[in-house]
């Protein structure tokens, strides 16, 4: 399998010389094409910083990032045309109607037939009736589906999902997970997924990567890690890593 994301000796330090805080510390990881990979770790582990560096929103202090085998510095436009991102913490403009938001992002990605694309995805995520509504009036569950619709407008090959179900009730969260699995299977989209819900990670992810204090702690399938550390489930593995017990 080829790697969609390759991070080599990635380092990110914030702050002035002498008072630097290392958010990501010599991180090496690969995310294989077509897989859903969970990026796990406690708060402050460096997950968000890593994702932001992958998206070229933060410049690494050192190390290399390759997406689809290309480096961001020289191929930013080419890479970002095939990447998308969704997070409940990054909102779409609430003062636009849902269709206006979706059309705007479709235009930014140069989607050829915008109306068809938006309608196709609106049907897929069952948000057709939401299109004429103001984004500000949507519930959290509806917003998540609209965000995911936006994230698929450019038919991405890589989707970065930052805690997409964090503010959803169990029913909507379950529906969202099923949708994500469907997208992954039907469209073969590689996903890098962060969440603090370990059950969700076990259900969704082909592989998981644990980081803590910016360092890679371990990686493998959920069952491999549970068995390796002799724990009951992934939640216990998470707790042990977060508390530096293993």
């Amino acid at each position, binding site marked *: 399998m080829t790697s969609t994301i390759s991070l080599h000796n990635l380092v990110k330090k914030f702050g002035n010389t002498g008072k630097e805080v290392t958010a990501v510390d010599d991180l090496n990881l690969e995310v294989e094409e077509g897989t859903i990979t969970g990026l796990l770790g406690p708060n402050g582990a460096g997950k968000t910083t890593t994702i932001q560096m992958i998206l070229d929103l933060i410049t690494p202090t050192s190390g290399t990032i390759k997406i689809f085998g290309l480096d961001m510095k020289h191929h930013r436009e080419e890479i970002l045309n095939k990447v998308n991102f969704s997070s409940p913490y990054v909102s*779409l403009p609430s003062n636009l109607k849902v269709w206006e938001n979706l059309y705007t992002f479709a235009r930014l990605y140069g989607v050829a037939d915008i109306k068809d694309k938006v309608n196709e995805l609106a049907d897929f995520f069952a948000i057709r009736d939401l299109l004429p509504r103001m984004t500000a009036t949507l519930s959290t569950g509806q917003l998540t589906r609209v965000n995911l619709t936006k994230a698929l407008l450019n038919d991405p090959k890589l989707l970065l999902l930052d805690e997409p179900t964090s503010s959803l009730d169990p029913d909507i969260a379950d529906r969202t997970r099923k949708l994500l699995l469907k997208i992954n299977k039907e469209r073969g989209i590689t996903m890098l997924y962060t969440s603090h819900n370990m059950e969700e990670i076990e259900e969704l992810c082909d592989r998981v990567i644990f980081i803590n204090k910016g360092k890679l702690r371990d990686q493998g399938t959920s069952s491999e890690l549970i068995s390796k550390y002799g724990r009951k489930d992934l939640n216990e593995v998470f707790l042990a890593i977060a508390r530096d017990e293993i």
Partner: protein
Amino acid sequence: MKFYRIKALIIRQLYLYPRSFPRLMDVFFWPVLELLVWGFLSVYLEKLNLNSVNIASILLGALIFWELLNRSQNAVTIAFLEDVWEKNLLNIFVTPVKLVEFVTSTVFLGLVRIITQGVILGFIAWLLYQFNVFQFGLYTIPFIISLLLFGWILGIFVVAIILRYGTTAQVLAFGIIFLVQPFSAVFYPVSALPTVLQYVAYILPSTYVFEGMRTIIATGTLPLMPMVISFALNVVYLVLVMWFFYAMFRVVKKKGLLLKLDQ
């Protein structure tokens, strides 16, 4: 640079106007209100017959050109702040949009607003005060272009500062223009300033426009050199401000400030 991305960013902003009363007020109400206040003051001063100079023309010309400068700076900054207020910057910058496309879209949007405002102000000034903005003939065009350019330069400068220092710096969006006003000799000649401040005045491209406008009203002609200097200064400042903007954006990416601006 891809035009379809610039178009997308402009259309997104234009969606907002028809349904937002405050935005419409910003385009129409405030400039018209200022025109009315200053216009009636001009009429009053003219009735006093203080001297032979056409006070109404000087004040109204100065006001309309000042509004062009003010609004062109404002349009660039507000278009950017819309994305900050709506926490949409991350969404924009995870798309393939380039920095130059982002800046160009705000500048184009500013142009649309300025043209709309210019037409309305020009019409009202003609209707109420018989002031013809085209009395400056072909000079009107370089006047407007020079002021638009300087407004954009100030707007881009403020955007760079807000990017770097966050929303606490957004007061500059509405205030920076008033730092420029006293030295631009908008309502009085440069000679009215103390000598030291005259040097400051002459490094601002806007000063040459307002001085030029008064020269035309007084003599009917405009020497070429002041306008050349005005454009040359604009080019220098444009290069400097783009360099500054890119430098600030590099700092923002290095420090991870884009995420903080969106929180």
